[in-house]
């Protein structure tokens, strides 16, 4: 039995260190460590509530719009404000651009490069995979970067700049779009669709979105060459990625993309059956974090660093829903939303292959929605509803970032922020153990993974969650 520390993890956002106990070449136990603390929750105390709109996006450079959306939502909740329809649509568009760009970037730049590694030199697919997906020098990187940058020019139009836009407001957005910009956005979405349909999927987005089961997915992939997604599915079969990184089997989604009538993606939890999400059952445990305090609901949460705590091994708190760890992300979102392929995949409890498939499925599902949203914009009508923050107020802002459930909780007293708590998706997924000693989702997913000399399996499991460590520890 040996104990090894794996890190720094490349191609994940932020710092991650995983400690593994290895028995007979397989992971027996794992501990996920986040060795960075910045203290945003402490920074926000005492600030003007609206200042959250400046600080929150800066929690994370990769999902800054999601952080802005959570801040705008928590402020709107505290103000009792409903966004102007144009503003709601524009925020959805900016949020979807970020989420889709994240999935796209993760697939090409973070996840796939592992298959180019020398450890896989004996595999039939290795040559083409290395040429295509090798980090920095692969043909995919050269193709993807300009395509990605062009898609993200939508952010310049929608919210001024990205990352760290200041345009997202509780009542909508700070700038109304003009008719010509609506046309430009439509063109940008159509350009990106063309790239996706010719290079990533080799098929219409609607055809991918309509795949109803894992068997249908396999038949579709076998029909003809299916682009880079097809290449992944072939590799996943050969490496049995459907048996790697088995999750906790409990999925949670805060729901996303508010429409005129309710959320496009519903809120809920799935553990083999669908249940309503009880927000009051959320709590953060700090027993194994370098933090003081006891388990609390985030509305009453405290954040006090305590670096000399012997049982601590991370700056990440352990969020639990009714005492249990939950997996969050694209797979969780689509499972809760009832997509048949996602439900079929998740029957195994979540794994490396399912997480990657769910992200790409989500690209195919959401881009056509965005095209509809652009058509719904009405230049000339208001883009921002105005409101006042009461001197005393409280609120919750629950949104879905690319990586899953993101929540902000605020309390305002005497016109200032009295408390601000954040639980990001990776805090859920990369949570440490809790008071009962129960490991977090990644810690459980790593158990059983091959971890001998030259094994890349641990890297696949970690990256299948697309972690964002700076968000985790904020």
């Amino acid at each position, binding site marked *: 039995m040996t104990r090894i520390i794996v890190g720094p993890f*490349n191609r994940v956002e932020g710092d991650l260190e995983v400690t593994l106990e290895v028995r007979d070449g397989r992971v027996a136990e794992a501990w996920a460590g986040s060795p960075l603390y910045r203290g945003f929750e402490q920074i926000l105390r005492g600030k003007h509530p609206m200042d959250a709109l400046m600080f929150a996006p800066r929690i994370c450079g990769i999902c800054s719009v999601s952080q802005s959306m959570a801040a705008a939502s928590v402020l709107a909740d505290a103000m009792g404000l409903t966004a102007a329809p144009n503003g709601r649509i524009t925020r959805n568009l900016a949020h979807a651009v970020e989420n889709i760009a994240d999935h796209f970037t993760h697939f090409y730049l973070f996840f796939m490069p592992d298959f180019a590694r020398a450890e896989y030199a004996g595999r039939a697919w290795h040559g083409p995979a290395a040429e295509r997906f*090798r980090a*920095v020098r692969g043909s995919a990187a050269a193709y993807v970067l*300009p395509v990605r940058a062009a898609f993200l020019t939508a952010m310049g139009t929608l919210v001024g700049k990205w990352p760290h836009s200041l345009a997202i407001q509780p009542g909508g957005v*700070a700038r109304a779009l003009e008719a010509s910009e609506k046309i430009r956005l439509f063109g940008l979405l159509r350009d990106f669709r063309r790239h996706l349909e010719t290079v990533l999927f080799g098929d219409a987005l609607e055809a991918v979105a309509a795949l109803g089961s894992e068997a249908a997915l396999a038949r579709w992939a076998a029909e003809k060459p299916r682009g880079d997604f097809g290449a992944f599915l072939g590799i996943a079969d050969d490496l049995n990625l459907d048996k790697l990184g088995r999750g906790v089997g409990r999925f949670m989604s805060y729901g996303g993309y508010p429409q005129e009538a309710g959320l496009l993606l519903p809120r809920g939890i799935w553990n083999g059956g669908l249940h309503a999400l009880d927000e009051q059952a959320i709590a953060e445990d700090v027993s194994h974090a370098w933090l003081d305090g006891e388990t609390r609901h985030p509305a009453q949460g405290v954040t006090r*660093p305590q670096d000399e705590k012997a049982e601590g091994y991370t700056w990440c708190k352990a969020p639990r829903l009714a005492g249990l760890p939950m997996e969050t992300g694209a797979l969780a979102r689509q499972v809760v939303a009832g997509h048949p392929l996602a439900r079929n995949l998740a029957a195994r409890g979540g794994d490396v292959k399912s997480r990657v498939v769910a992200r790409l499925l989500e690209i195919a599902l959401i881009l056509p929605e965005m095209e509809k949203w652009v058509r719904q914009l009405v230049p000339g009508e208001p883009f921002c509803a105005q409101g006042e923050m009461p001197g005393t107020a409280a609120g919750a802002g629950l949104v879905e970032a690319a990586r899953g459930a993101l929540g902000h909780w605020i309390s305002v007293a005497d016109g200032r922020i009295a408390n601000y708590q954040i639980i990001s998706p990776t805090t859920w997924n990369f949570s440490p153990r809790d008071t009962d000693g129960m490991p977090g989702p990644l810690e459980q997913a790593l158990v059983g993974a091959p971890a001998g000399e030259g094994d890349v399996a641990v890297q696949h499991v970690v990256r299948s969650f697309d972690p964002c460590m700076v968000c985790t520890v904020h």
Partner: protein
Amino acid sequence: MDDRDLSVLWLQSAGCGGCSISLLCSEARDLHASLDSAGVRVLWHPGLSEESGDEARLILERCASGEIPLGALCVEGALLRGPRGTGRFHRHAGTGVVMTEWVRKLAGMARYTLAVGSCAAWGGVASAGENVTDACGLQFEGDQPGGLLGAGWKSRGGLPVINIAGCPCHPDWVTETLTALALGAFGARDLDPLNRPRFFADHLVHHGCTRNEYYEFKASAHKPSDLGCLMENMGCKGTQAHADCNARLWNGSGSCARGGAPCISCTEPGFEEPGHPFHETPKLAGIPIGLPTDMPKAWFVALAALSKSATPKRVRENAVADHQVVVPPVKKTGLK
């Protein structure tokens, strides 16, 4: 690697990764290829390179020992000295060593050291509030020289830390600085008094702002989404902030002001604690405190009064609307 190439090691200290993510938005060309053509060779970047774990640690160690000659060390994110001077708020994953120690060592070996973003330059957002983590920049703490490396520190190439400030910084500011260094075309004279590259810091955000007609007539926005100038009421510091955001533009055609948001002067030291809410302009007797840097107050007040009295109806009414309610008239002027 060609001897003349600039080798680059990139570290992420206490930041949000936003400057790296912004760099990936470098437009029109393939980022990797354009750096490569310019002779910039990335040895390791935590977000992009293949090497992980032991292999990555080995690259860092070989750079620190001098075995791999290091052209430029890029540091993104603030340096955390806490708690109690230990630096333990940020250990570099997998190495057991705190990031401040890695940065000191590697900066000592690099020909040039670059602070990428306002966190690495001044401490930035990480140093806001009570600064519980004791965050600072590489060579500044707010606007005070010093920081992690000390006020008098110079790299082996004879330059202080090059502060590519901004939150995040524009991708071009990074690629152009690295390219200029690789070309041997960047020296002390190319830095402004805060050691920012002058090619972007010798401009003001105000330059090229699409709201300049509103500024000229002091036709001001009063609420988010109004078209008017954001300086008088909405906290905009574009007339004082050093950067070319409205001339160079972001993500195709954007900027903070074009997105309807005030410039929060994110390239300036201490921007994270302005002493007032970001969306409000502090005023004394109804006059904004933060007037354009090189304009005497009396002149500003006199000109503002005059221009307000001369504001065309079109500009006055559009300033407080979210779209043009009065459009420029089509009129025969005799001009062709």
